[in-house]
């Protein structure tokens, strides 16, 4: 039987005390780190309002320092910046959850507002700060940010995707950059030699990268301007069939340590072509010099047109924040008034297109070479989905395309079933 029933067998010695307090402090630090937030920003002035601002973690060097600098430059509020790590949907999901709590960030970036957030009164309309310059934004860029005629977010950066190709490798294989989906398949196959593959579209066979692009490139769309689900047609179905064909051709790099949005597979010579974003261009130039070119994702079928996404991030304001007016003021300062910040943020690190047309015209780094081509593709072939296309519909479409690609489902059957499900969701949103 246990003889010594005391909890501490020895009196608390100084060393033991230090051990305990030390581990408690460490534990506290770890717990604090779990919050994924690192403070930063202005040295606080008690007379000014304090604003919490959230960013997702951008990959390019210098971006974190840049946002801290912007926050510090602002003199009308104490801005505390949180740089939130996470891949895929982790950052947006964290924001979604935080918006429901009592300690939501005042200012935060998301890709788009949702109808449900507006219905629940979580986000603040920003028409008053954008009104005077609304015509200076591309209407396609405003589409995902506008709900019931009100603008709920100010675009910070425009993103787009395209196919990067290695000039020297195409030359060696004696092929031209592809201009149609069929050519993309044959060229990818011809470029595959040994461990170098023709094309990289992500480790999931291109579902995440190309589900939307293929639909648009086939001349289709997902939700029409009069709020109808329209992706279940033969053109779109054929496009997904082509994706299956592309994957089966042996020309696609099936896996790499990074996802499609990182150019490593391309710059390290694993593939001769890669679907990636404009943001990666400075890194690619650094790695390959001028041994690369860009093409838009080619048209699929006779009714198709090349396509890209009109993506990016937009700044929003929490409606239940303590300093809504100050938050709006800060958003206006950053993304409407301050052209230096907008140019620095858009072309200083990775490449993006400044959302304000007048400011995009000033960005000298986007005026020549592949960057200028990319801007042209965005303006000519850019598509976006409206806020009525929500995350549930996105999951439904992704599942359908995955089923077509991975489980050999009949494309038209899978799309019809997905369209039914999307319709049910759409009716809920419209009600």
């Amino acid at each position: 039987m246990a003889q010594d029933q005391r909890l501490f067998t020895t009196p608390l010695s100084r060393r033991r005390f230090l051990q305990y307090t030390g581990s408690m402090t460490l534990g506290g630090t770890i717990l604090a780190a779990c919050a994924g937030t690192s403070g930063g920003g202005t040295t606080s002035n008690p007379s000014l309002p304090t604003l919490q601002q959230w960013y997702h973690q951008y990959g390019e060097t210098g971006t974190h320092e840049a946002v801290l600098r912007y926050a510090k430059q602002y003199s009308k509020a104490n801005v505390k910046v949180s740089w939130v790590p996470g891949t895929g949907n982790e950052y947006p999901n964290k924001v979604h959850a935080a918006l429901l709590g009592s300690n939501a960030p005042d200012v935060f970036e998301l890709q788009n507002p949702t109808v449900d957030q507006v219905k629940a009164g979580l986000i603040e309309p920003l028409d008053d700060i954008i009104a005077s310059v609304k015509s200076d934004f591309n209407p396609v860029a405003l589409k995902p940010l506008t709900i019931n005629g009100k603008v709920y977010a100010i675009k910070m950066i425009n993103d787009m995707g395209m196919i990067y190709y290695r000039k020297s490798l195409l030359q060696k294989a004696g092929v031209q950059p592809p201009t149609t989906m069929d050519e993309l398949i044959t060229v990818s196959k011809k470029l595959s030699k040994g461990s170098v593959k023709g094309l990289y579209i992500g480790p999931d066979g291109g579902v995440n990268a190309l589900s939307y692009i293929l639909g648009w490139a086939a001349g289709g769309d997902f939700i029409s301007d009069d709020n109808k689900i329209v992706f279940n047609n033969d053109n779109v179905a054929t496009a997904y069939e082509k994706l299956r064909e592309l994957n089966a051709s042996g020309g696609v790099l099936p896996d790499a340590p990074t996802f499609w949005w990182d150019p490593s597979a391309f710059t390290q010579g694993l593939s001769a072509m890669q679907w990636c974003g404009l943001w990666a261009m400075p890194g690619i130039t650094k790695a390959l010099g001028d041994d690369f070119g860009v093409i838009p994702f080619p048209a699929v079928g006779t009714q198709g047109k090349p396509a890209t996404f009109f993506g990016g991030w937009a700044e929003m304001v929490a409606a239940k924040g303590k300093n809504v007016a100050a938050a709006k003021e800060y958003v206006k300062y950053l993304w409407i008034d301050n052209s230096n910040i907008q140019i620095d943020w858009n072309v200083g690190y990775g490449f993006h297109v400044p959302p304000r047309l007048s400011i995009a015209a000033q960005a000298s780094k986007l005026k020549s070479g592949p960057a200028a081509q990319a801007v042209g593709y965005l303006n000519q072939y850019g598509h976006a989905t409206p806020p009525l296309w929500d995350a549930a519909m996105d999951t439904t479409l992704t599942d359908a395309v995955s089923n077509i690609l991975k489980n050999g489902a009949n494309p038209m059957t899978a799309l019809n079933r997905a369209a039914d499900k999307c319709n049910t969701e759409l009716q809920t949103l419209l009600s």
Partner: protein
Amino acid sequence: MQWVFPIPMRMLRMHFMVHATVGLDIRYVFKIRANVQTYILRKDEPMKSVGTTTPAEMLDLREENQKSVQRVRRQSLKTALIFWSFVGPMIIGLTVFFYIPILWSLILSFADARATLTPAGWVGLGNYRAMLGDPEFIRALVTFTIFAAFIVPTTLLSALGLALLVNSVKFAQGFFRSVFFLPTACSYVLASIVWKMSIFNGSSFGLANTVRHTVGLDPISWISSPNPPWYWLVLVTVRLWLQLGIYMIIFIAGLQEIPRELYEAALVDGARRGWQTFRHITFPMLRNATIAVLLLNVIAAFQAFDEFFNIMSGGNQILARPPLVYLYNIALSDQNYGYGSAGAIILTVIIVIFTLIQGRFLGFGRSE
């Protein structure tokens, strides 16, 4: 029969872990309390007088008695304080982080709650009907019932085998025990990333593919190719690597509780070492450990999330999507909390049913 709910089962897992590793659990705290009390009472027992007592002595004795009663009271207050300082935080934690959310989730499951945690309107069983009519949710449930049917026996047998091996080692037993237990301390996310990006990467330089290359085989895209379903190899190995240690420890704890006399008696009676003693002594004596491992395992299989979420991303998700990942998409990406809660309650009910069935057949919690 004991009603065992899924969330407390997770606590039970912690409880086992603590018990097995540090040797301190809640039952132990109860025991401490009881022992401390008997110890104090014994110490303060008044001296028995042999002869008759004078009134003065009587008074003294009474005073002495009163003092000792006070002392006992003070002491038992102290032990109560110690007791609650151990148990209190756990009860508060359970209530705040488990019971209230479960209750809230139950309420939300009957409501329309999109982008809000307060019910915006009641929909009755609408969420449940929609969820049970959702082919993707049903597919996730079916996939994970099959997954459970495979992973549970595999984990059980491997953990038992490992425990027997480690327990029979004559030297450096502590070392081997620690080595096999260490992966338990590794984060699921970290292990998943290592498995996905390094060991089973589909490119030619992934570890598994490098090994294949050296023997002249073509690389395989382990995670993304649907046919043959190599991704199960990736998912099962990472889960086994992470989980075996803790279950092994439970079995070792069970093994060390088996009295040596049983084996000695059996040997005297002519039993042979090895299979015969294992079959008739070790395994029956491990009954409680086995049942515990089985229950924890089934629940863990249905609650699978981390490695699936991290390894099967994008278009690969559909190949092996656990119910929890599906519900995570609904609740956190789409912010449809009512619908997601209905799914969570359905999953909870399934786990409870499985646990009860097991309890009935295996007699978990039945007194010996």
